[in-house]
C-alpha cells in the first residue's frame, strides 16, 4: 500500500487537532470535580481531596452563585420559546416562499439574508428604545423577540431549501386527493423534510442559548437574566470562585452538547447543504 507511508503523520496531525479541540473541555470538566484546594495547588493529578460533585451542589445552593438556578430557568424558558416560534414562523415563511408564486419572492429572501449581516451592536442601540416604548424591556417577550430575529433568517432559508427539493407534483397529487394547501404542508411536506426542520430548531436554540449581546441590553434584573449573563457576572465579581464557575460552565454547555449529540448527523448535513453546489 502506497498510502501507509504517511499514515503515522496523519495520525499525529489528527491527534493534535483532537487535543486542540478537546483540551479546554477536558480540563474544565476535570477541574469542576476538584476541590478548591487542589485547583490552586499547582498540580495536575495529585489531589489531596477526592473528586466530588461539591461545586455542582454549591452552584445551586446559597452564596455568590445563588442566582444560578434562576439563570438556568430563564435560559430554558427563553431558548425553548424562541425555538418554537422560530420553527413555526419558518415553516410558514418557507412554505409561502417555496410554493406560492410571488413577484417579491426574491426580494424577500435577499433582504432577510442581508438583515442577518447588520452589526448586532448597531441594531441593539435603537432597539433598546423601541422595546422600551413597547414596554418590553426586562421581559421574556422582549428577549425572545430578538432571539427569534437572530434564528429566523437561517431557519427560513434552510427549510425553504428542503421544501424546494420536494417536487410540486406531489403537492398537486395530494390536492387532487382532496387536501388543502396547508393540509399538504402538514401531512406531506413536513414529515418528509423533518431533518431540515430539526436543524433549524437546533440552530434557533443554540443561538438563543448562547446570546449575550441582546440579553445583556434588554435584561435589567434577575427576572430575565440568562446563563451567559450569569457566567459573566460570576466572572466579574471581586472574589472569583473558580470551582463553582467551572461547574456552572459545564452546566451551561451541556444542553447544547446533548442536543447536538442526538442530532449530529442532521446538523452537519443541514449546515453544509447550502454551501455545496448540487
Amino acid at each position, binding site marked *: 500500500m502506497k498510502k501507509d507511508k504517511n499514515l503515522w503523520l496523519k495520525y499525529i496531525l489528527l491527534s493534535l487537532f483532537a487535543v486542540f479541540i478537546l483540551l479546554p473541555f477536558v480540563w474544565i470538566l476535570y477541574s469542576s470535580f476538584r476541590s478548591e484546594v487542589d485547583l490552586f495547588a499547582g498540580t495536575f493529578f495529585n489531589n489531596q481531596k477526592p473528586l466530588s460533585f461539591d461545586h455542582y451542589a454549591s452552584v445551586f445552593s446559597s452564596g455568590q452563585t445563588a442566582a444560578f438556578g434562576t439563570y438556568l430557568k430563564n435560559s430554558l424558558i427563553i431558548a425553548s420559546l424562541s425555538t418554537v416560534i422560530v420553527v413555526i414562523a419558518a415553516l410558514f415563511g418557507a412554505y409561502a416562499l417555496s410554493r406560492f408564486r410571488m413577484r417579491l419572492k426574491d426580494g424577500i429572501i435577499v*433582504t*432577510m439574508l442581508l438583515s442577518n449581516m*447588520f452589526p*448586532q*451592536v448597531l441594531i441593539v*442601540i435603537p432597539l433598546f428604545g*423601541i422595546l422600551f416604548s413597547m414596554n418590553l424591556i426586562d421581559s421574556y417577550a422582549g428577549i425572545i423577540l430578538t432571539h427569534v430575529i437572530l434564528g429566523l433568517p437561517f431557519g427560513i432559508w434552510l427549510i425553504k431549501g428542503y421544501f424546494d427539493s420536494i417536487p410540486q407534483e406531489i403537492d398537486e397529487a395530494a390536492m387532487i386527493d382532496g387536501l388543502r394547501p396547508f393540509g399538504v404542508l402538514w401531512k406531506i411536506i413536513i414529515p418528509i423534510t423533518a431533518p431540515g426542520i430539526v436543524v433549524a430548531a437546533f440552530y434557533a436554540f443554540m443561538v438563543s442559548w448562547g446570546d449575550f449581546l441582546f440579553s445583556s441590553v434588554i435584561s435589567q434584573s434577575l427576572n430575565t437574566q440568562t446563563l451567559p449573563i450569569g457566567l459573566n457576572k460570576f466572572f466579574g465579581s471581586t472574589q472569583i470562585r473558580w470551582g463553582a464557575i467551572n461547574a456552572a460552565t459545564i452546566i*451551561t454547555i451541556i444542553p447544547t452538547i446533548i442536543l447536538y449529540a442526538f442530532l449530529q448527523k442532521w446538523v452537519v448535513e443541514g449546515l453544509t447543504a*447550502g454551501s*455545496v453546489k448540487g
Partner: protein
Amino acid sequence: MTREKKRAMTGYLVVAPVLLVFALLMFYPAVKAFFESFTNYSLFNQIPIFIGIDNYKVLITDSYFWQTFGRTLLLVFFAVGLQYLLGMILALLLNEDLKGMKWVKYIIMIPWVIPVASTVVMFDWMMLPKYGFINMLLQTVGLGHLTRYWFGDPNFAFALIVMMHVWRNMPFYTITLFAGLKSIPKGFYEAAQIDGANAWQRFFKITLPQLKYPSMIVVVLHVLWTFNNFDLIYLSTGGGPVGATEVLATQVYQTAWTYFEYSKGSALGILMMALMLVFSLVYIRLVRSDEA
C-alpha cells in the same frame, strides 16, 4: 381576482407576520440608527438635535478609531486565514477515512455549538496566571520563566483572541470543505494519477478549484461574523489590556452602553455596516447563483 392572483395573495399573507417582525426589529432600528448618527443623541441629550456629519468627523479624525479599525481588519485576516488553513487540513484528513475517524467527526462541531460566554471561561481558566493549565505545563517542563498572565499581556492577548476565534469556527470550515471534498468525482483523481500528477499537483489543480464555491461561502460568512463579533472579545478582555484587543464592535458597545453616547455609537456602527454591505452583496450573489 384570478386563481393565480389569489394564490399569490395567500402567499403574501402567510409571510406577512414574519416580515412585519423583521421590519420592526431589524430594518426600522437600522434606519433609526442611521438618522440618529447625524444627531447628538445621548443619555444626557434626550432630545436629539441635528448636527450633520459631526459624529463621523470626530471619528475619522480620532487616531483611536483608526487603530481599532486596523486591528479589526488584522483580526479578520488572521482568524479567517488560520481557520481556512487549519479547517482545510482537517477536512483533508477526514477525507482519508482513517480508523477512529467517526469519533473525530462526532466531536468536531462541539466548540461551535456552545455559548461564547462559556468558551471564554474555559480559555480564561486554561490561561490563569499561576494555576492555569498552560502555565502549570510550562513549569513542569522547565520553562517556568515563560509563564505569565496571557490575557493580561498586551503582546499575547490579541493572539489569544485570534486563537479563540479559530477554536470556535474552524470546525465549520472543516465540515463545509469536507462536504465539498465528498462531492468531487473520484474519476478526476484517477485520471490525474494516470497522467502522473503528484499529490500537490492533484491538490492545487483539482481539489482547490473544485472547492471554490464552498470556500467562498465559508470565507465570506466568517469575514462577516468575525468583523461583527462582539461577545468573544468583550467577555474575555473587554478590549484590554490598554486597548490591545479593542475592535470596532466592542468600541460601538462601549460608546453606547458605557458612555451612553448613542449617536456616536450609531455613527461607528453605520460605518461598520457600510463596509460589510459590500461583503454581504458578494455573499448574496453567491447564494443566489446557487439557486439559479
